[in-house]
């Protein structure tokens, strides 16, 4: 625990620092946020710009699902898919122990967006760093996420109608 004697001459900045230190003491110095990248953090910082391009991906989603989903649903799909991609990209740039990638359910799902179109989208943005197998993983995960979001949306609609 920090014990710096209070000094009435402290500036507001120094007083604020003491508040920050107090908060830090409360968590035993743990202040991290975002994913726990450990020693891979510098790699993440250097590679986090490599991901599916937000606008183009959203456009593809709108084109195929615009009549069934809303922007807020697209926010969620984009966020989940981008998060899924992050460790794959980091792993493409390291050797040794790899970062765990989220498991993907194996049951076959309806292709709400044709595989080829998704492949094309991801290949355009990630083709230089991801293998074909990894691109397929991302496509499968995207189908899964879309399926989940559509299910939730239908459920919400049913509940609204019932009310």
């Amino acid at each position, binding site marked *: 625990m920090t014990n710096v004697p209070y000094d009435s001459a402290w500036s507001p900045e120094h007083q604020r620092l*003491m508040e920050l230190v107090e908060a830090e003491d409360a968590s035993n110095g743990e202040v991290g946020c975002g994913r726990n990248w450990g020693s891979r*953090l510098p790699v993440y910082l250097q590679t986090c710009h490599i991901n599916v391009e937000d606008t183009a991906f959203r456009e593809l989603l709108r084109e195929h699902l615009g009549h069934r989903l809303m922007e807020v649903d697209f926010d969620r799909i984009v966020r989940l898919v981008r998060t899924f991609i992050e460790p794959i990209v980091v792993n493409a740039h390291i050797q040794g122990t790899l970062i765990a990638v989220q498991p993907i359910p194996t049951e076959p799902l309806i292709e709400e967006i044709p595989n080829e179109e998704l492949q094309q989208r991801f290949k355009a943005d990630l083709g230089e760093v991801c293998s074909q197998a990894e691109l397929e993983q991302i496509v499968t995960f995207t189908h899964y996420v879309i399926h989940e979001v559509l299910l939730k949306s239908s459920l919400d609609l049913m509940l609204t109608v019932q009310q």
Partner: protein
Amino acid sequence: LARTISLLQVQDQLIVEAQLLPLSDRHLEDAEAFWVPWLTRSGEADEYWDWVRKRNRSSLLRGTEFYAIEYGGVTQGLLALDISKKRCLIESQFRQRLVYILALATAPWNRPIIQTPPMFKGVGGQFTDFAIDRSRELGYKGRVGLHALPGAIEFYRKLRVRLIECGPDPDEPDNLVYFERLGETND
């Protein structure tokens, strides 16, 4: 965007002036030279750094900003902010723009779990205060979002910046707890 900030030098209980400034290759090289050996017990030879060195920084994604805190010529912390893609999740400000803290980390020697006593305190808090200021500068009225690592939840609860704890995020792979700060018009 550089600014002078205060840190507490724990050993001498002294308040020192450090610099918070945009990230440069030197900060990442610092992390390579000083952070990684502390963080990896095995000392495995990661060759990724060759790639890191070669990266052209101008290719960094628009809308992502990177900062470092530096004291004594050494990198004491790293921060990445997403200033354009993330939206608020709290209902009262749903889908409004915010500054999202993608990553925040303090140097290993500033973490009591690795070194006791740690060298400096205040890095995480100064970065969070900076993210709020950056949000104001961008016209986002101080709206900030972040997912706290499990050990850091108490830190974000006690920061006194009115972060709202929204609970574990089911959409986040590790179910990390999401915090969001309300915009100033809602204060």
